[in-house]
């Protein structure tokens, strides 16, 4: 799987709280049985004035000049709450988002990020707002890269254009999954013997749990 070590890119603030996965990708935008073709539906209800014609809403941050190449989102608490749809992460990823910085995340969304190599970086809202304020007014197309943040996952550090550093939170195991691009299934299959042993003793202890093949 893809690895995440150090990333520099344009950051866009959407500082609402409780941005749910229905908002990240509405049901109607999940058109194919698969993980691809979802970027066009990202934030569709906010991004387009008219869903049919796909006329962009000029007020929405990702439609503003320079923000089409956004790769980092700054958001309010409880980002990705609601529906378990992994399509929210697949859509963000396909659009080019590599990291979301927010005070907290919906639990399922958070795990879906780790599973897809997208960084959920936890940072208190005051600091998320401070970063957004620093970026505000800078030209994302300017040569000074005024709207870019650098994220160093190894050091758990976000670096702003003025050089301010913010330390974010992530568990050691999640960070390692991202840094090494590990495949969780392969990792777990290394515990094959323990799984087998558990199963054997559990069949004795709780036989009713295990259903026959023909019901």
């Amino acid at each position, binding site marked *: 799987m893809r690895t995440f070590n150090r990333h520099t890119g344009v950051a866009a603030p959407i500082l*609402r*709280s*409780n941005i*749910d996965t*229905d*908002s990240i990708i*509405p*049901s*109607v935008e*999940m*058109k*194919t*049985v*698969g*993980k691809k073709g979802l970027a066009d539906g990202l934030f569709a*209800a906010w991004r387009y004035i008219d*869903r049919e014609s796909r006329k962009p809403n000029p007020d929405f941050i990702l439609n503003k000049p320079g923000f089409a190449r956004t790769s980092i989102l700054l958001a*309010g*608490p*409880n980002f990705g*709450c*609601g*529906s*378990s*749809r*992994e399509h929210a*992460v697949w859509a963000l990823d396909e659009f080019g988002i590599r990291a979301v910085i927010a005070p*907290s995340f*919906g*639990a*399922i969304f958070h*795990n*879906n990020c780790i*599973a*897809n190599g997208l960084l959920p970086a936890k940072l208190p809202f005051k600091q998320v707002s401070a970063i957004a304020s620093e970026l505000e007014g800078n030209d994302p197309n300017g040569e000074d890269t005024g709207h870019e943040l650098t994220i160093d996952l190894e050091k758990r550090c976000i670096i702003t254009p003025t050089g301010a550093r913010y330390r974010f939170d992530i*568990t*050691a*195991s999640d960070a390692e999954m991202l840094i090494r691009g590990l495949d*969780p*299934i392969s*990792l*777990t*299959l290394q*515990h094959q013997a*323990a*799984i087998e042993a*558990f*199963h054997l003793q*559990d069949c004795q202890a*709780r*036989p*009713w*749990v*295990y*259903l*026959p*093949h023909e*019901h």
Partner: protein
Amino acid sequence: MAQTLFEKLWNLHTVSDLGDGEFLLHIDRIFLHERTGGIALRNVADRGLDIRYPSQVFCTMDHIVDTFPGRGDETLMPSGRDFIETTRAAAQAAGIQLFDIRHSRQGIVHVVSPEQGIALPGLTLVCPDSHTCTLGGLGLLAWGIGSTEAEHALVTGTLRVHKPKTMRVAFNGSLPAGVTAKDMALHLIGKFSASGGKRCAIEFTGQAIRELSVEARLTLCNMAVEFSAFTGLVAPDEKAIEYTRDRPFAPGGAEWDKAARHWRSLHSDDDAVFDYELAIDSAEIAPSVTWGPSPQQVVAVTGEVPDPELETDPAERNSMITALDYMGLEPGTPISDIRIDAAFIGSCTNSRLSDLREAARYLEGRKVADWVKAVLVPGSTPVKRAAEAEGLHEIFQAAGFEWRESGCSMCLYAGGETFGPGKRVISSTNRNFEGRQGPGTRTHLASPVTVAASACAGYIRGAGMAHSRKAG
């Protein structure tokens, strides 16, 4: 050492401690549906991997499938048929149990699994659907996962999970008459916010919980995810054990006795310590409804639309202003003056037989207001059959409700059916997010009986309130 119910269930399923608070947990049951199940099954097959315990895996058609009478594989959502056909083919190839569109056990995943005895007290059960927490009402550890995690569970029979913190929410005393489990959930989220559950495993306790039926406990736990909980739990008591008896996939004979003995040991020890504690005086809970597009925007049906100017937190004030704009409401408007266009009873929250009986009791001899489109979608095909055997469908139809086939239907827009942009819906569902029931649709969450009463009045109305608008 004293343990909580959650810790007992966790330890019972721990295969390995992976360190850093992460554990490898054994998964007893996996349930899939056509929205995300087909993708997971296909990816497993594409990687050349096998499903570890196919007899422990189930799949149903609920999210996208049509609920119109005489339905087939076609749906109003243009690509819906692809999801249905892909899932069917993948489930058959994988050799797992599928409750297909015309199967007598088909229905909404979280209604089907306890109904069939697939969900049992003490188990771990996962499903790529956030409302899997519903099943905690029966005393099992059940939670929603993503598609990639579902692939992991299918292939390894386990999941890697960070151990959540624990919270106890005590509903002390008895509920007032006319107050339901849905009102408890809305009240809880309204009082402590949509993030109040702090990603904890929550155990609901107290007299009001003990007095709830198992189906009502499922309703309460269903909305644990709207409270940002990892999941909800109610300790299995004799009611839960009796509920399980003789279900098709439940144990029988000597195994039943052994299982029941085990289930009776599943409760928090008296001196168990929780990371967080909340308490609610059940007497203060009223029939409730949401006024905005967040489940925390809750008010009693006798109340009024709140005023953002009175909110001191600036972020909260802004979200209230956006909410009023989306909902087309003015501050200070009495809730009972809000005119509705549609009424919907269904979803994994409130579509079980007890919900239908409660709504039908109110609707008997009454009529839906002539401007209201009213739809009832039973939670499962067995619920539909049982309701028809009692004649409930005749009560609903006589009152003016459409009587549908079972599925998720208009709880969400996945099947492509909606009440329409700008339409105001009183709904027995769980999510009032912007666009959840279709682009621009305005959702007010409430209990089935409040939906029934509102449908008849044409305005939001509690069942105990005067029927006609501004009576007297």
